[in-house]
């Protein structure tokens, strides 16, 4: 299968600050691609550039053979790209049910009810909360709602930004299982941005590693898991790594 999404030499700025310095990526159709990196590496900016919330100064974003860089985010969403932003951006004062209905705003078919039930089958907890306002949900439930709402778009491509952020280890496992199920059962192509490298490498088929705005490594997730750099910096497998010690020293001086 071909690539659903191709990024070529993307450069994106926050005002004068260059956040992405020439990123190229391929997202093959039907796969889960993980994007790893530390804080401030530019992972979220890559997603925003794809979904249209930010405009790249240079480079191209090609989705299903069509250039989409610089389009409005609602236009991109209506073409089947569902962006689940970081931090559970739900509609706080709408009910769970209304949140899901809004996910299908651009659709006019009559399968919307059916799809809401499908979302409830993935996230049974939400079914008991249909009438509650989203603001009253717990963090994990809000994350599920945000993913469920994105599903209502019937997306071809899903951009997941830190779905594990602030969730308990058990919930992280649950979410990663659901990501895999969505991929295999619904055929959704997924671009997963994560700081939780262990989860991202377990879930993904292919992985990219970003550092200060550049892709520094790419390989299949299985091979990335074996790479010594990754083990050391992201999986914390080496005892007392160079970075670890340096951090420890800094902390001592704070006291």
């Amino acid at each position, binding site marked *: 299968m071909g690539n659903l999404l191709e990024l070529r030499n993307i450069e994106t700025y926050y005002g004068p600050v260059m956040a992405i310095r020439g990123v190229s990526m391929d997202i093959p159709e039907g796969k889960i691609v993980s994007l790893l990196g530390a804080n401030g590496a530019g992972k979220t900016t890559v997603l925003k550039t794809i979904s*249209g919330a930010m405009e790249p100064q240079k480079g191209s974003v090609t989705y299903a053979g069509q250039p989409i860089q610089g389009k409005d985010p609602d236009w991109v*969403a209506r073409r089947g790209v569902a962006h689940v932003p970081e931090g559970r951006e739900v*509609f*706080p004062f*709408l009910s769970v049910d209304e949140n899901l*209905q809004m996910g299908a*705003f*651009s659709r006019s078919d009559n399968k919307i009810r059916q799809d809401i039930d499908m979302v409830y089958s993935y996230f049974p907890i939400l079914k008991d909360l249909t009438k509650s306002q989203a603001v009253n949900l717990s963090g994990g439930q809000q994350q599920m709602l945000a993913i469920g709402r994105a599903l209502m778009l019937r997306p071809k491509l899903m951009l997941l930004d830190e779905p594990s952020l602030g969730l308990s280890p058990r919930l992280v496992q649950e979410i990663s299982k659901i990501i895999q199920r969505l991929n295999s059962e619904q055929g959704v192509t997924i671009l997963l941005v994560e700081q939780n490298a262990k989860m991202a490498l377990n879930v993904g088929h292919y992985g990219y590693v970003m550092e200060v705005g550049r892709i520094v490594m790419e390989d299949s997730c299985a091979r990335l898991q074996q790479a010594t750099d990754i083990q050391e910096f992201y999986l914390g497998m080496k005892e007392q790594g160079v970075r670890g010690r340096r951090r420890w020293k800094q902390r001592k001086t704070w006291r």
Partner: protein
Amino acid sequence: MEVLQLFISGISQGCVYGLIALGFVLIYKATEMVNFAQGDIMMLGAYVAITFINIWDWPFYWAFPATVLVMAAVGVVLERVLLRPMIGEPHFAVLMLTIGLGFVLRAAAGAIWGNEPRALQTPYVGEVLRLGEAVIGYENLAIIIGTTVLCFLMWVFFRFTRVGIAMQAASQNQLAAFYVGIPVKRMYSLVWALSAAIAAVAGILTAPVSLVDPLIGFVGIKAFAAAIVGGFGSMPGAIIGGLLIGVVEQFAGLYLPPGFADMSAYVLLLVMLVIRPQGLFATMQKKKV
């Protein structure tokens, strides 16, 4: 009975404040802009109605919806031409823009329709309803009924229609609204259309009571106070705040020395800001930065 009489005229005046306040709140909630020309849009609505009814001799029940539609279109044009390029500019710039827009509308109305007060001809003017010893003019009754019906329609629209819920969604979380494919910019146009239409209704309803001249838009300032009293950002709050100011004004006019009636709205505003700065119905959560 005097009390009841005052109360009723206070309510009817308060409804007008409430409707204009509703326009303020709608635009603020959706776009985080404060439209200080809201009162002047009401004035424009009243003049459009006068043109249709007094000058072109249209029947009232035709002219009413026509005016509302024309004003909704005016709202869309204002948003597209003036406000949309201002997205992302500082709030202060937008504020100055709407204040300037108010000046332009007043001057334009004076140039087109003249500065002398005019009365809108309505089929119900002059008739009264007797409730015990209290007397309600039909024009006041029309304001109260019109406002009630409008509020009910708004409630249905925002609570049950797809577009209404999408408008709420866009105002609660703009980014997420973009990401689910809601055309947020079109929602902004729609909000302006809606609030201009509401202002038009307020203009038509109030025109028979107070004569229409280019400066009637200044009630917008009292309506702004009403919106704050109600808790800026709450639609029921806007109406309740308007009613409260309307009633307080009437009683202050009778029981306090002359001059206090006009002042009372702002005294109420100050008292409110001291006791309960978030307003009666504080619905806005703390904004995430």
